[in-house]
């Protein structure tokens, strides 16, 4: 069976073929893209990691999270802090602290000197925050718009905190100017290629995890809780627990995306983690199709790519285009672009039955 004919078939075979095709395309991309374009693709893959998590939490679980920038930012900032400390050398002080701070490394930065601690914290801090917040919110049965507003407020508070603590967070400048990634020189093209492959592998891994979760008993429960929370509770399941797990998984995925974004893009600043980028993550997911497996990833990559190429062609025109696209999709294709095929098929069937 060829890939194309598999793509034309419905259901799981198509998912399998699409997954294989995506992996092959990611493997071949370095042969056709210039190093600059490949760096951009790697950045888009990092943003797509956030989208995978949103697809699970929002698409499957109905948790409209408007604050994924917080988890993306936590992962990104923790990684950036480690890279800054590593660049400064053992016992050294990052350059910006000498300029704007006291010239001393604050105590809460110190654990990040160790690469292993940094990786663990990148995974654990966002998970712990999401678990605590999720538990507090979902056990009180806060849902829908209230949860959305709460998550957005968290993103706003996070940026204000970062900007206010300029001596230790770099303020609006953020953290940038990294020389090495776990000892590998970031200016070396071979290492940049390595980063791209790491991002591609991590993203594929996340899609596989999301697929496993979505098709497991947990996935069924998640959809059940989204559609009829009370019925799930009467059947003896704890909807709060199901939601917390989905929220934590989405947070960790966003954090990993943020952590890889930092060495690839070379900067993380409050402008990358606030309310606007948090909504930006959502737009890609909505356009791609939030309840599908690959929709969020493809939507996110397509929107990032469109943002770059449209603003290159028409500087200052991107923002109008983004607004128009979002309106069109929400108004005419609420299931996202992934639902185009389904809509077309239904229309064909309807015509056939009429004939």
């Amino acid at each position, binding site marked *: 069976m060829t890939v194309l004919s598999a793509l034309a078939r419905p259901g*799981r075979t198509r*998912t*399998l073929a699409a*997954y*294989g095709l995506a*992996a092959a395309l*990611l*493997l071949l991309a370095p042969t056709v893209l*210039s*190093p*600059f*374009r490949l760096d951009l693709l790697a950045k888009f893959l990092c943003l797509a990691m956030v989208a995978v998590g949103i697809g699970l939490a929002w698409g499957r679980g109905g948790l409209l999270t408007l604050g994924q920038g917080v988890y993306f930012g936590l992962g990104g900032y923790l990684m950036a802090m480690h890279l800054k400390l590593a660049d400064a050398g053992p016992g050294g002080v990052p350059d910006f602290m*000498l*300029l*704007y701070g006291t010239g001393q490394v604050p105590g809460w930065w110190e654990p990040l000197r160790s690469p292993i601690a940094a990786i663990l914290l990148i995974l654990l801090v966002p998970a712990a925050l999401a678990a605590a917040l999720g538990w507090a919110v979902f056990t009180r049965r806060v849902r829908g718009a209230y949860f959305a507003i709460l998550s957005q407020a968290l993103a706003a508070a996070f940026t*204000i905190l970062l*900007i*206010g603590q*300029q001596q230790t967070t770099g*303020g*609006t*400048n*953020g953290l*940038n100017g*990294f020389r*090495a990634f776990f*000892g*590998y*020189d970031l*200016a*070396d*093209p*071979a*290492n940049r*290629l*390595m980063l791209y*492959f*790491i991002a*591609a*592998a991590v993203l*594929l*891994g996340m*899609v*596989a995890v999301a*697929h*496993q979760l979505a*098709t497991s008993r947990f996935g069924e429960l998640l959809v059940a809780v989204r559609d009829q929370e009370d019925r799930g509770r009467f059947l003896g399941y704890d909807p709060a627990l199901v939601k917390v797990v989905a929220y934590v998984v989405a947070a960790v995925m966003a954090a990993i995306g943020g952590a890889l974004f930092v060495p690839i*893009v*070379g*900067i993380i*600043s409050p*402008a*990358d983690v606030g309310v606007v980028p948090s909504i930006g993550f959502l737009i890609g997911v909505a356009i791609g199709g939030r309840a599908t497996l690959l929709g969020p990833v493809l939507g996110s990559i397509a929107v990032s790519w469109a943002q*770059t190429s449209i*603003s*290159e062609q028409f*500087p*200052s025109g*991107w*923002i109008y285009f983004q607004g128009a696209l979002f309106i069109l999709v929400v108004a005419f294709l609420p299931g996202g672009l992934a639902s185009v095929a389904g809509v077309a098929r239904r229309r064909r069937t309807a015509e056939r039955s009429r004939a």
Partner: protein
Amino acid sequence: MRPRSLSRHGVTRLSTVSLAALAVVALSACGARVDSGEAAPTAAESCVDTSGDTVKVGFLNSLSGTMAISEQTVHDSLQLAAEEINADGGVLGKQLEIVSEDGQSEPTVFAEKAGKLITSDCVAAVFGGWTSASRKAMLPVFEAQDSLLFYPVQYEGLESSPNIFYTGATTNQQIVPALDYLAEQGTESLFLVGSDYVFPRTANKIINAYAEAHGIEIVGEEYAPLGHTDFSTIVNKVKSADADAVFNTLNGDSNVAFFKEYNNAGMSADEMPVVSVSIAEEEIGGIGVDNIEGQLTAWNYYQTVESPANEAFVEAFKAKYGEDRPTSDPMEAAYTSLHLWKAMVEKAESFAVADVVAAADGVTFDAPEGQVVVNGDNHHIAKTALIGTIGEDGLIHTEWSSGEPIEPDPYLEGYDWADGLS
């Protein structure tokens, strides 16, 4: 219909295989480690094409987002400078070909677009940036690719990159002269108001050090988030502190709200003057002349500067963009930056970055603000400091001048009181 479990395993198996393949590729792709001692291959050779009769340069300003209102004016004056240079025969006989990119008021986008201009468009130099965050974001890109950035806005100093030329003022050409002026006027106490980001915080650090050494008392220091528009609390504090003057490092919209509230509270320029370092001709219209008439500003250029070069600049700008458009300090610094690059290239007789940098020291340009000279060591330019009063015509009129260009000193090494600041 295939059994459900089989294909689920299929997905798992396929993902395992593809992950393993990618992991192998990723590991085999490893390059130099920083601590291994082997020299990492430097970034790709410059791809700037100077074989034809044109040469590309990049303009990178925010044409969308919150900074667009300011950065569009810089973009306009860069366009004017490019037109003039092209009409005058170009640079080394080559016409400039402009590639414009939108920084979208986001540091990350500035870094991305800078990379695009250098490696995809192969521009010989890039002109633009406004916020410190955008400059800090672009700096590593220009250093890694060994390209040139001309940055046209006054800033907080404490920086000097071999790949950046700073054509706006550093602190000893704007903030320090403003303090000298205030001290000369007999100011004994100051209240500091600023937006919460790097420029105001660094400026206030310098002001505090200066004040301590010169016996000026700092009676208050308040910050508002960028875009903040409720100033009743801060203005009340200013009023009750009763300082001799206010030093204002607020940016953007906040100034509108601050000055309205200041007037509402019954304070005026006579009673407690406000010295602003981020309000130029362009912003006065937005704040409203009534609200700000008589207040002071510190810059290196005003539209009212009297010189033949400025007359020509203002006339050309108004002819191109309309009579109602004022010219301001950052616009003039951007206009000057393109002409300075042309002068450096022609002195070096080469577009290559290393040649241009080597030739930069001592290059002069008869700018609208007066003659400017490039300092080859720290890549800033000597500029004359001007304290101005905002007039009822909405323009700024020079009140006090340093008389001669001040040599740039971004790390304030020539000032004893600034020891320990950097």
